[in-house]
């Protein structure tokens, strides 16, 4: 049972839930009632629904932390309902709220746990720990030997995800993993997860009761009502523009147009190049660039090519040639994975009317400006409106046909 996969990385596996049911002892009505659902390999599926509707119970039945009372679970076609649960869990990553890191082990020891259990050699484990820390955006040298209590909530959560992914499981279960961190950190963690998923293509099942989070992260969203009954299981776009019933639209909430912005990412719009200089450039070069650029300002990058300041013509004159005093600091940047909503927010707050796009280590990639954003938003909303109109039209036609049939039916009989 040592090698489940080779170094290349295990991509996702399918998950099938068939008539899955859980009855807790002493409670006549089941907590999860007959759930049947198919999750594709490499897909991120979000369970969203009101508190107590059975999201966690359903999730925990997938790795059998909770044993189902009835029904089957199949992962990659293999029936895992009756196999040794310990074996099953080593193939299924598990990350929970408040990270669940073991406080008496260092970050490295926490991450190494599963690889150790499945018998990886020492050297490979050591490399893997570094790789995982790097993957979740933590500097291995700095965080390796720290204890969980020496980390912020967001950092703990990252390590929790790193631990869950360490042995490269094809499936990752996450139960409100970002529920306990502040909104800004949560936003960053969500972006990270999206980036990660772009690289890894795991099958992720993610529980939340935050619909915005569901829209942002999900390929598909399962809106659950009580006893885990599926109210709608579809793409975020479809749920936003075409909610199945009042329960779902209640859950979607107001401001669907703004929420729609959460569905598109900076990578989907045009990222334009922009004149830049670095702090190491000689002043003369910077002057020349300012003069020749044809834009009002240019972007000054720091030594590590991260956006640092916006420099306007004249700024340098006023600061008497001192780069330290000239220009305005870059207040906000976005990554390629940020949503258009985040980008809009950043553009609105930055007085240059544009926002710098950065890569994994914060290095400059390009900019997105107001005009690009507005155009994209209009296109999006237009497309959605057409789709919704079409759907409504179909619905009306169907209704008309039904009414027609009802009127015809009894009438015809009376005549006879």
């Amino acid at each position, binding site marked *: 049972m040592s090698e489940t996969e080779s170094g290349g990385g295990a991509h996702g596996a399918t998950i099938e839930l068939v008539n899955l049911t859980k009855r807790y002892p002493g409670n006549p009505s089941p907590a999860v009632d007959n759930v049947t659902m198919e999750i594709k390999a490499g897909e991120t599926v979000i369970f969203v629904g009101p508190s107590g509707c059975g999201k966690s119970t359903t999730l925990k039945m997938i*790795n059998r*932390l909770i044993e189902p009372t009835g029904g089957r679970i199949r992962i990659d076609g293999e029936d895992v309902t009756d196999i040794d649960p*310990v*074996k*099953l*869990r*080593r193939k299924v*990553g*598990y990350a*929970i*709220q*408040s990270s*669940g*890191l*073991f*406080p*008496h*082990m*260092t970050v490295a020891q926490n991450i190494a*746990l*599963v690889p150790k*259990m499945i018998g990886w050699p020492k050297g490979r484990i050591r490399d893997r720990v570094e790789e995982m820390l790097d993957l979740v955006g933590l500097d291995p040298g700095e965080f390796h030997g720290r*204890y*969980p*209590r020496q980390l912020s909530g967001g950092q703990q959560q990252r390590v929790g995800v790193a*631990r*869950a992914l360490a042995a490269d499981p094809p499936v990752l*279960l996450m139960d409100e993993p970002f529920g306990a961190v502040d909104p800004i950190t949560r936003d960053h963690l969500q972006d990270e997860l999206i980036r990660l998923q772009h690289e890894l293509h795991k099958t992720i099942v993610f529980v939340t009761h935050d619909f915005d989070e569901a829209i942002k992260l999900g390929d598909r969203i399962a809106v659950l009502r009580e006893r885990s009954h599926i109210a709608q299981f579809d793409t975020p776009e479809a749920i936003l523009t075409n909610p199945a019933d009042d329960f779902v639209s209640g859950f979607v909430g107001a401001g669907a147009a703004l929420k729609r912005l959460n569905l598109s990412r900076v990578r989907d719009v045009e990222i334009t190049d922009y004149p830049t200089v670095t702090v190491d450039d000689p002043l003369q070069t910077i002057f020349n660039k300012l003069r020749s650029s044809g834009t009002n300002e240019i972007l000054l990058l720091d030594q590590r090519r991260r956006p640092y300041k916006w420099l306007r013509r004249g700024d340098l004159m006023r600061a008497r040639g001192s780069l330290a005093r000239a220009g305005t600091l870059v207040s906000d940047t976005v990554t390629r994975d940020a949503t258009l909503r985040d980008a809009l927010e950043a553009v609105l707050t930055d007085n240059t009317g544009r926002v710098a796009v950065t890569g994994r280590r914060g290095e400059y990639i390009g900019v997105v400006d107001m005009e690009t954003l507005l155009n994209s938003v209009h296109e999006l909303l237009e497309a959605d409106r057409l789709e919704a109109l079409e759907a409504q039209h179909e619905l009306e036609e169907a209704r008309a046909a039904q009414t027609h049939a009802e009127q015809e039916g009894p009438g015809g009989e009376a005549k006879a």
Partner: protein
Amino acid sequence: MNFWEYLANRHQQLLTDAYQQASLVFQCMLMATAIGVVIGVVTYRSGWAGNLATVGTSAILTVPSLAMIGLLIPLVGLGVPPTVIALTLYGLLPVVRNAIVGLRGVDPTLVDAAKGIGMSSAMRLLRVELPLAWPPILTGIRVSTQMLMGIAAIAAYASGPGLGNEIFRGIASLGSKNALNQVLAGTLGIIILALLFDAAYVVIGRLTIPRGIRV
């Protein structure tokens, strides 16, 4: 002979007694710890079993020490055996109680996480639950040791080793010129030993409690 002259005169005997007492308590504590932790591990998951273990070990503690040793002598004879058995039994309660409280007190989300990442129940116990419950267990061991240090003096009654002999000799010859010195020397010796053990536990705690959960 004043007290200091007495000490100077008898230091050989006193050191031997002190050494024997320390060794007695240390060995009994080892056994009480091993047995106590096992009882804790076996019973903590079930409500009634855990409570039974706590009640049982505290019942032992209510038996007066003289009576306990008196009861053991007909069974195992005089000397070391009755002393060791009695002390080990007395030492159980704090260890068992703290082991159960400590193991039950492990954050349930950590237990959930341990299961969730695929630890077997033995591994969960050894790698997660026991290390996290170790600080309270160590406190139990420390309390137990203090208690045994006093009770061990009674061992002399069964011809056992230790500083108790000094005290008993003094009590037996009350009125003689060295009686008070003997009782005093025995008692002070026990107090000093107890303090030394306590200091040792601070060091043991430093060495064995993982840095991540040290307060």
